[in-house]
């Protein structure tokens, strides 16, 4: 009898979290209610709770960004808006809120080179998973058209043109996909105003200033220091607690 109880207890301890955890949708709805009643701290906490359970969605990041915005944490708000861009980059509400949040930061307008602007636009054309499915669709279309051209005995030149156009479309799509992945993998948002230093040590010479909400590109992580680059190409070192990356994962060391 006692053996059965012990086994049941172990089973409970292992699976209790999974079995009895609240559904993310329910927590999301509860967080929305808190938000509507102006309790942004509580709403943000509930949205974060869903993230901690290992789930994420574009609307979740968007609402979390709104909660931080209302609390006056512009850096965190921009961070979560940019994370939401990974899920629905063409959403009008998201674009409006993101632009508004960016406009009230103290940092510079993110201008950069023509290529950098083009790369950002290209990276935000489609959502993370849309790039994968569109690539598959293009490959399927290319295969279908190729087989059709063989089956209907199209002229050789026409076949070549069709295949080349298909391949180019795939290559361009792949290029934008890479831009998208690179953008989200390397980008981080500054959470506190800080000086970016020439060297990764306390007391080093300041190179330039970054403000809360400024985007930076993380080039390297070394202990508790990150080498970051601003859009204008300036590079320097800043402690990792001053910024947060859009995607948490392996660092480019």
């Amino acid at each position, binding site marked *: 009898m006692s053996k059965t109880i012990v086994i049941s207890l172990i089973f409970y301890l292992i699976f209790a979290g999974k079995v009895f955890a609240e559904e993310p949708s329910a927590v999301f709805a509860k967080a929305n209610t808190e938000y509507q009643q102006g309790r942004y701290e509580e709403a943000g906490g509930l949205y974060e709770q869903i993230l901690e359970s290992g789930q994420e969605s574009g609307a979740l990041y968007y609402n979390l960004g709104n909660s931080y915005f209302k609390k006056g944490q512009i850096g965190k708000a921009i961070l979560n808006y940019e994370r939401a861009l990974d899920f629905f980059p063409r959403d009008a509400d998201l674009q409006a809120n993101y632009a508004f949040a960016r406009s009230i930061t103290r940092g510079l307008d993110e201008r950069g080179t023509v290529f950098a602007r083009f790369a950002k636009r290209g990276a935000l054309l489609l959502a993370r998973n849309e790039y994968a499915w569109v690539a598959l669709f293009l*490959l399927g279309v290319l295969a279908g058209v190729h087989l059709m051209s063989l089956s209907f005995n199209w002229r050789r030149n026409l076949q070549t043109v069709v295949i080349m156009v298909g391949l180019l479309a795939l290559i361009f799509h792949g290029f934008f996909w890479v831009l998208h992945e690179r953008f989200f993998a390397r980008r981080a948002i500054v959470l506190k105003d800080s000086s970016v230093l020439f060297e990764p040590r306390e007391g080093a010479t300041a190179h330039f200033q970054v403000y809360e909400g400024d985007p930076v590109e993380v080039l390297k992580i070394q202990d508790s220091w990150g080498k970051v680059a601003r859009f204008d190409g300036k590079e320097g070192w800043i402690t990792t607690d001053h910024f947060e990356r859009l995607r948490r994962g392996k660092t480019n060391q």
Partner: protein
Amino acid sequence: MMCTGISPGAAKEISFQADVDRTIVELGSYLRLTLTVTGVDGLDQPIELPQIDGLESRLLGPQTRVSIINGQYSSSYSLVYFLYPLRVGTFKIPSLTLTVENQTVQSEPITIEAVGTSQAPVASGSTSEGGAQQGMVQQNLSERIFVVLEASRNDVYVNERFDVTVKLFVNGMDVRNISYPQIKAQEFFLEDFQQPAQYEQVLEGVRYQVVEFKTFAYALQPGAFDFGPAEETCQLAIRGDQGRQKGFGGFFEDDFFNDFFGRNYILRPLTISSKTLQLTIRPLPLEGRPADFSGAVGKFVLDAVASPLQLKVGDPITTRLTLAGNGNMRTAEIPIFKENGDFKAYEPQVTVKGNVKISEQVIIPKHSGVKAVPAVSFWSFNPETARYEEQPAGPFALNVAPLEVKELPQIVGSSSRTLNFSNTQEDVLGKDISFIKDRPGRFYDRGYQAWRSIFFGTVLALILMGWGFGYVWHRFSVRVKTDERFAGRLKAPYYARRGLKDAERFLASNDVRGFYDAIHATVQQYFRNRLHKPLGSISASNIRSSFQGIGVQEDVVSSLERLLVDCDAARYASAQFNRDRMERTFQDLRRAIDQIERKCRLRF
């Protein structure tokens, strides 16, 4: 020594110049004297060279040069003489006077030296010009190619800009791949060199090709410092002494072709250094130095523009400060607007283009009480007046309106024209974020990527497999259509199975004639496709030769031969064939086809 005379007050500028190609000449050789009159198309009579004891002259001929550059017409007339020394010694070509178009012009005297053969200095890197120039005295290399470093001033202030010129002089040598000069000047900052200029210059009666490099320099600290030397690296093209190797290809090894294609030259690297200059750098005076002086030295002009000047609270004003001058633009700190209680200020965008530095900065008025964009000033030290000078810009008067309030709606035709909302509180227009999303959308596991999913991989594999299968099927179909032999080999087993089935049916009904007709047709169809033979071409007489080289067993060939004989016999005397014989024939054919299929499959 420029041997030039210009007629004063002349309506048309005429000058007269005498130069020699070198100043030292070997006894028995000659040098070339050129008398050039610019501004004329010709002379009525040749210029008479005075008799010089021990020096014989011979007029080679006149040359006329006419050029029109940017619509400007210019001309020159030259007389070229060869001068032959008759003895060793120093000779002086005196100043020559010429009257042209009522203007009198005069050249400078030139001194030349004639030396014996043993005295002629030999130089490496000199060229052997050949032809008329054979016997040219080889002068020191340093007299034929050298570098001159010049600074516009030798007494400057710290951070004051001064011109630096490096000239490469070349006389009668083929110099290639000239690099930009390197100047040793640790206590100075040097700008990049500009595009080099090329021209001719006569020095002490010798004409040189000059390559001139210009740049600016700034002193970094006070004191007396060496400036230079300037080092110039280039390559000397020296004619190779290859000799002429006759053999095949001799035509193309001819000197003409070698010279034309530049194959007969050896390029030798050469580094030439100039002399070192001594510069004195003065410190900036402390007296009168303003507190916000940032170290700019030179003459500067600051220009400022701000727009718009009529705006609302929160609207941005773009200010553009343009600093132009002849100082060090890298260190000149253009003034910026700092954030205060009236303005929010963004970090400026600063660009430098040549002698102009531009700063664009956005500032935003925080309230409607702001009346002007404040003035800014730039302090610099002017080395000409030795004083600190201020360049002010602004202020710019502003008209900042407060934020608008909501206007009351009006009703057209209404007597009151305007609705009375006296009990309603007016809303102040503002800006805020859009509301939250009601639905969470699809939740994904954190870090989920569709392309890593099994479903994505399966679909990708299906597409690739379908594409590959479709392509292979297409190739197969094309071959079946275009390769008759291949198609026949594929069809042969099908015809065999169908024929055997027909024969079996006739066997069951004991129809001898029908059976042997079916057997015959099967043999013909099968072998037509399998062996690519014309229909009806297989007979008992030639079947043995048809199977040569395939490796079919002898007994099988024999049974087929017998089978075909039976087929022919059955047409005319079917009564002699009983069921057993028909059964044996059937089995013989089946066995033969089986074996041939196996053999052919291996073979094909």
